[in-house]
């Protein structure tokens, strides 16, 4: 299983609200988590759900992520850079080229400097090291402050 769409009722919302235009925001909205490690997706999901985010979908590969984001149009995509089929930068480029309105935040077990200047050049909001993922950190990043 590479992609999963949660039942809409899971986090209590009545209707899909992914149509909200993604603008810099501090308020939690809908989220898709893309990472090839199931255990990590689970941990991130729990942590951000606790912070008020609604995890509407998960994907383990770049291709599944592109498909899922097109269907669900989440407010935010938390995207791992190292994926089995293509890297996170390529996924971000493809999403941008497809006209996606979802805000992309890159994450990785590597440090930001391991990707040199590519984070700045990519169509993403920013980069969040995996161990630093938390509701407040994501909110700060989305509010416009690069971490």
């Amino acid at each position: 299983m590479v992609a999963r769409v949660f039942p809409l009722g899971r986090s209590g919302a009545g209707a899909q609200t992914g149509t909200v235009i993604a603008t810099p925001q501090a308020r939690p909205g809908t989220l898709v988590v893309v990472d090839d490690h199931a255990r990590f997706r689970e941990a991130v999901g729990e942590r951000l759900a606790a912070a008020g985010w609604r995890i509407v979908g998960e994907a383990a590969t770049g291709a599944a992520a592109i498909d899922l984001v097109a269907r669900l149009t989440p407010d935010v995509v938390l995207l791992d850079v190292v994926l089995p089929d293509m890297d996170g930068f390529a996924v971000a480029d493809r999403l941008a080229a497809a006209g996606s309105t979802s805000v992309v935040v890159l994450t990785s077990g590597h440090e930001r400097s391991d990707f040199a200047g590519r984070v700045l050049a990519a169509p993403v909001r920013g980069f969040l090291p995996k161990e630093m993922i938390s509701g407040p950190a994501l909110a700060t990043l989305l509010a416009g402050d690069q971490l």
Partner: protein
Amino acid sequence: MSGSRPGLPRWAAIAAIAGAGVFAAVDAVLEHRAGVPWYSSIPDALVGWAFITGGVVAFRAAYVTGGVVAFRARRLDRTGTLMTAIGVIWNLDSVAFYVHALVPYAAWVGNVTAPLLAQLLLSYPSRALRSRLERVVLAALYVQVLVVGGVRDVFVNLHDYYACPCVHSFPTVHNPAVFRVLETETRIAYVVLGGALLALVFRRWQRSSGPARRALNPLWFAGLATVTALILDNVLGFVRLTPVQNNAESAVVTVIRLSVPVALLIGLVRIRQSRSAVADLVLALDRAPGPAGVRQALASALGDPGLAVCYWEPDTRSFVGADGRPADPEPPPGRAATGVSADGAPLAVLVHDSELLEQRQLLDAVVAAARLALENARLQAALVAQLEEVRASRARIVQAGLDERRRVERDLHDGAQQRLLALSLTIAMISDKLAASPGADPDLTKLADSACGEISAAIGELRELGRGLHPAVLTNEGLAAAVETLAALAPLPVTTRISPARYPPDVEATTYFVISEALANVARHARASRAEVTACGDGDRLVVEVRDDGIGGAPARGGSGLTGLADRVAALGGRLTITSPPGGGTTIRADLPCA
């Protein structure tokens, strides 16, 4: 150097040649006295007669002489037999014309010289006809001469058509139409079969090469000229020529026919000359030792520039070339292999032009002269092969080491690190929840915070470990970005000038570790105020330099860290050099091939 084969003894050879000379002289006298037309057309002065007679004697004796000499030379007994047969038939034939009852048979048998000449050209110098086509053309020529010619000369009345006094033994046909048909068929057959013969001989010449061609050239050219002349002779038969033109034409054809034995003798002299090549070879081997020199000397002694020498390697039970690389002694088409052994053990295989097999004696002499040099060259080639093998295995070991480091780094990142990261998020969440619940045990909150810190530290250490094994930034972004990271971490200002190009992974990894170690040394020992890293590549090579303005005087081997790196650079076929004059800073330079 006379042949050692049991064959024609010297006295028999001299007798045969002398006999042919005497026979031809008698014939010349008879022809003159009989007033044969083409003699009569020459002014009857004694000098002219003597000159012409001498010439005719030489002509008539030439085939026998050439044949006998060739027969005595080794491996040309077939050619010698055929040529002697042509000479004998030619001589007997011309004398037989004086016996009227023999004239029809003389006319018949005399033409056998044509297929004999064809057989000589096709079987020279090897004894065998090579293709079915050659056998078919030759057989057709024999049938034409023996069957059709026999019917025409023996059973059709020649007296009706030639002004010669002939007496037939059998009742003969007096029908001009029959004669004309036979005559026309004969001329057409000669032209067609002669054309085919030209093509076949030309093809043989084309396929020969090297010294063989040099020795065989004269006979083939003479043969081609003779066949061409005989074809023209038959074409001109359709045209009415005046007697003078006719005589001139047959004189020219005769002279061209004479070129065949002369050419054969020239070829034999050339083969004999090539034997002095062995003497030259001994000198050349002395001057140019080593596998390449030996090959060159053998190639020029055998006159085969494409000669290949494959040396036997007893350790690996395989053949290697002069460069130490594996070689295949299997000869391609048109080439042959000759084995050389010393004391019963295989030494080398020469892959040469297959025409050289016709000069077995030369080949044997050359091999005998070169055996000792070949033995030395084989040892050298074996050494080069072993060195090559060691070099290749060293490169493989270094490559395997780099691959292993990359694999371990990836496993750490994908395995333990991902689990720790997930765990850190979970514990952080526990910590959050404890902080948010008012009645929580403060010790529990403290423990959770401390676990959070421990996990962060573990993740950091794991990340450092991975970076030391193989930096992710190098894999992801290449040398330029990876060195930027190193420069940023260095305790002194480091400027970098590195092109953003990508290089093969082992070249990038090796140069990265060289730069990393060099910058660490600068920080530890150089007392420098600044350092500079440059890397420039041109597709074939990558040259990196780390330069500082410190105290210099670094050991030439650069300490244990750099020695290990110098080995790795060398394993990739590159060089690491350290320049460090006291007080003049230190420059470490690695130059690596990127192929």
